[in-house]
């Protein structure tokens, strides 16, 4: 039941929504006595105007892709995984253990091992809430919230205790050189054409893209994905079809937790190269917004993650070069989430009306009733 052309749905509406968000951000920036036009220029220039900017934008985006996918996968089974934060923290712990204690001959092996361990740790952290939901009906929202707090305490325990390096800082030692992941600079830069200078984007970005593809295959192409989606839409139907709810809840949450955990290969292994307190830095929560804005589809998650990467990097440049406080950046993020995510019907409804008057044209035949296909 298309009420307007596809391009308007996927391009025009988000664009208009972004403009609205920008407008209201401008109002707030004006109110605190700064120049919104300058601010916009700095943000765009700083985040997208150079390979350096892109290097940061994509670095943040990589984090959000992982956590966004984690939330998205769970969403398909109608599980609301608020625990991405804790799962990412535990993933970081896994990465640190692997990188610190196993001597790797080459970074590729380190990446494989770290990614696997991160996934296992993240999955393990999701496993208990999942099991309690599946077997005891304990609400996954509460348990995952609780597990976020517990993970933070656990991380603190390790970082001021067993894993702490010398010095004041509650952090592990720096990972050995062999566990260093190549950054975009290492990969694409040459002495006469320096690119991505100093930016933290690294191979983990490509792992994230692979994860998008894998999740797409999982959800829309695999049998498990089919079962996950049918369970999500209707549990009675799933039971009727012989799909075990316990199995689906467990598998979905393990995959979700694994994805969230894998974020650690980007921020812990790729960027910080050591484990610090609060390593996930709220990416788990941004992942919720990213997944919801991306309509739980990997492509949507990717785009939303890049948008948030842009906001983070653009926001950093704002803080660096203007007197606009960093809290203003949070306000801008909020407005973007609000207008592109929650209020998109405010834009859609009038646009639909415009389009339907534009083509009050012939018969609504079977073609025009073609609803969205499953993808």
């Amino acid at each position: 039941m298309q009420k307007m052309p596809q391009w308007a749905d996927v391009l025009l509406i988000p664009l208009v929504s972004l403009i609205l968000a920008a407008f209201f951000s401008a109002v707030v920036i004006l109110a605190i006595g700064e120049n919104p036009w300058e601010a916009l220029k700095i943000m765009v220039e700083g985040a997208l105007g150079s390979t350096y900017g892109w290097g940061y934008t994509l670095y943040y985006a990589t984090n959000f892709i992982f956590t966004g996918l984690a939330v998205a996968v769970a969403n398909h089974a109608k599980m609301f995984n608020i625990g991405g934060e804790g799962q990412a923290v535990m993933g970081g712990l896994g990465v640190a253990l692997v990188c610190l204690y196993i001597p790797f001959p080459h970074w590729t092996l380190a990446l494989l091992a770290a990614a696997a361990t991160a996934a296992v740790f993240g999955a393990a952290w999701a496993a208990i809430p999942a099991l309690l939901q599946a077997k005891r009906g304990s609400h996954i929202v509460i348990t995952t919230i609780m597990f976020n707090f517990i993970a933070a305490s656990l991380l603190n325990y390790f970082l001021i205790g067993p894993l702490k390096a010398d010095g004041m800082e509650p952090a592990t030692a720096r990972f050995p050189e062999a566990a260093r992941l190549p950054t975009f600079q290492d990969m694409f830069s040459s002495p006469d054409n320096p690119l991505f200078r100093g930016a933290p984007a690294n191979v983990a970005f490509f792992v994230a893209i692979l994860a998008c593809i894998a999740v797409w295959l999982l959800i829309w192409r695999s049998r498990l994905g089919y079962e996950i989606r049918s369970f999500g839409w209707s549990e009675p139907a799933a039971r009727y079809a012989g799909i075990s709810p316990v199995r689906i809840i467990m598998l979905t949450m393990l995959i979700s937790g694994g994805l969230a955990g894998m974020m650690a290969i980007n921020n812990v292994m790729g960027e910080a190269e050591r484990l610090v307190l609060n390593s996930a830095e709220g990416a788990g929560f941004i992942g919720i917004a990213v997944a919801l804005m991306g309509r739980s589809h990997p492509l949507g998650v990717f785009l939303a993650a890049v948008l948030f990467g842009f906001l983070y990097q653009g926001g950093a440049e704002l803080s660096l070069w203007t007197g606009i406080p960093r809290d203003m950046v949070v306000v801008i993020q909020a407005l973007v989430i609000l207008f592109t995510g929650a209020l998109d019907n405010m834009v859609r409804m009038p646009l639909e009306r415009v389009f339907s008057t534009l083509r009050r044209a012939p018969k609504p035949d079977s073609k025009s009733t073609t609803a969205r296909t499953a993808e």
Partner: protein
Amino acid sequence: MDLATILQVLDTTVRLATPLLFACLAGLFSERAGIVDIGLEGKMLAAAFLSAAIAAVTGSVWIGLSAGIVGALSMSAIHGLASITFRGNQLISGVAINFLAQGLTVVIAQSWFNQGGRTPALAGGARFHSITLPGAEALREVPVLGPIYYELISGHSILVYVALLCVPLSWWVLQRTRFGLRLRAVGENPAAVDTAGVSVERLRYAAVMICGVLTGFAGAYLATGLQAGFVRDMTAGRGYIALAALIFAKWRPWAALWATLLFGFLQALSLRPDVLEGVLRIDVSSQLLDALPYILTVVILAGFVGRAIPPRAGGEPYVKER
């Protein structure tokens, strides 16, 4: 463990439970009407800031309280607009409100007061003081009951008693009034309300506004009752805990009281390593202490609380024509 210690822990329990209780009841009204609200945190924060800011400026805590309520109400209005009028995703709207409050409170606080996103410290009539209930002094010496009355029941700020009163009041409104009947109905099956000739939108807006008022109290209590001013992010995740308590309480007012008291109690315990060590006879590290309320919540949830079935129409916008 002596009576005084127990009373002290319970006293802390009551204070820590109060903002949770307000927020939990707020979420209860919203969710019973079918509007899921993970923006409790943001609304509380907005209210905490505005109540402290206006109280600081006017010197009157009551004007501050009203301003805090107005602040939470305006966040509610955004949530209503997004999730009722424009049938948006209620979760996204909640997330946005949390971010918005987190950013705006500090930006505005900084531009108004220039004290690093804090409000000036409140004193005198600009904050809620504890009140002594009648007879508390006189009865203080009575064994057992005296201290209980004096320490535990008396001596809280007025908002604590308001919160406690809100429990029977909420129950009464939900169960005994026309409005409550309709509100519960709209969270279960909005079509039933619609075909009965009652506006779904108006009811849901009313619920969301009540939610605003109650989160307004919650925030004002934090900033002007428990504390004497606003500090950035001072809600510190209490909105999420209130949400957990709400699910725990299975969306019922009396159960909400017990659930928030339980959470308050667990948090109070985690403030008292001496008591825990005395009872458990083991050394508890600060990390374990910090995680304890959350671990116990999961244990209690898994062990004793069954499946929680939310209001059936919760989270779904009411759409007639697909």
